């Protein structure tokens, strides 16, 4: 009476289920991309900010730090560092600029990247921009 649960039924469930959820993912992604202007602070995405993102990438800051919680866990979260340093670009710039070349003995050390003044300003501008993104109130506090 019952043909049992066959391999072709399983195959149909795989193809059907995968396509169903892939389409749903596309729909939700499309909606997300459309809604981003409400949260991504793009009105402040200036050329300097874009340049700052290049500086961020070219020096692989994500290799030690997290940005909105994503990255490496060796050094502090930088998504809210602008706020943590008292809403000061100068503080950020000074920190990066004055890293000692040979590190701090016995402590986790940040390289001296020899950035130009423009690059320093750009990356600080980028971090300010990131701190203003509406990311659902994360992190839980100023410590990041």
């Amino acid at each position, binding site marked *: *009476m*019952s*043909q*049992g*649960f066959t391999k072709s*039924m*399983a195959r149909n*469930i795989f193809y*059907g289920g995968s396509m*169903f959820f892939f*389409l*749903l993912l596309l*729909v*939700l992604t499309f*909606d997300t991309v*459309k*809604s981003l202007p*409400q949260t991504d602070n793009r009105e402040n995405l200036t050329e300097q900010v874009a340049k700052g993102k290049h500086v961020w990438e070219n020096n692989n800051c994500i290799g030690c730090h997290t940005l909105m919680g994503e990255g490496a866990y060796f050094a502090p979260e930088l998504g809210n560092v602008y706020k943590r340093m008292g809403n000061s670009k100068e503080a950020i710039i000074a920190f990066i600029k004055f890293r000692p070349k040979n590190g701090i003995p016995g402590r986790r050390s940040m390289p001296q990247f020899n950035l130009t003044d423009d690059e320093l300003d750009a990356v600080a501008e980028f971090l300010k921009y990131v701190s203003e993104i509406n990311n659902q109130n994360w992190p839980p506090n100023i410590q990041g």
Partner: protein
Amino acid sequence: MTKVTRHPPGEIIIWLFIMAELLVFGLFFAAYAITRIDNIELFELYQQNLDTTAALYNTIALLSSSYFVIRSVIAIKADEQKNAYRWMLLAIVMGLVFIVIKTDEFAHHIDNGITLSTNTFYMFYLSLAFFHYLHVILGLVILGVLARNINKGMYSSKENSSVETGASYWHMVDLVWLILFPLVYVM
């Protein structure tokens, strides 16, 4: 006297999926109910924007569709292939009525600029309704395949577990709507 083995209609695997589906919808429903407690005014305000009449027609559409599916299963078990085919087609038609009404409702919301991000109520309403809507479409695909197979004479009083399996899935889709409608539209 031969012993009758009792088991749910259709293949056991579909019941695994039905349980999984009910689990997901159940979680969404519970999340809705809990969130509503903290947002009563918001929920009650926007709930009034929902078209309860359309939802009522949809309920009738799905209930009659399920009824027609049951008639189709009974017919196939009595070796009445032609009747089984006709009942299945009727079931699909009622399912399509649901789709048409629901699509119109969604179009209306989109025209008014309502999206998942409009507010928490709409996030839940659109998520639940759209997710269910997709399941209705999937269910119609399954019923469509069954209808075609019935027409090709693939099922009989002896060989019909696939029909029961598809029917069980469709009843689940109907059941989810029977919870969704009062929970989101009415209460």
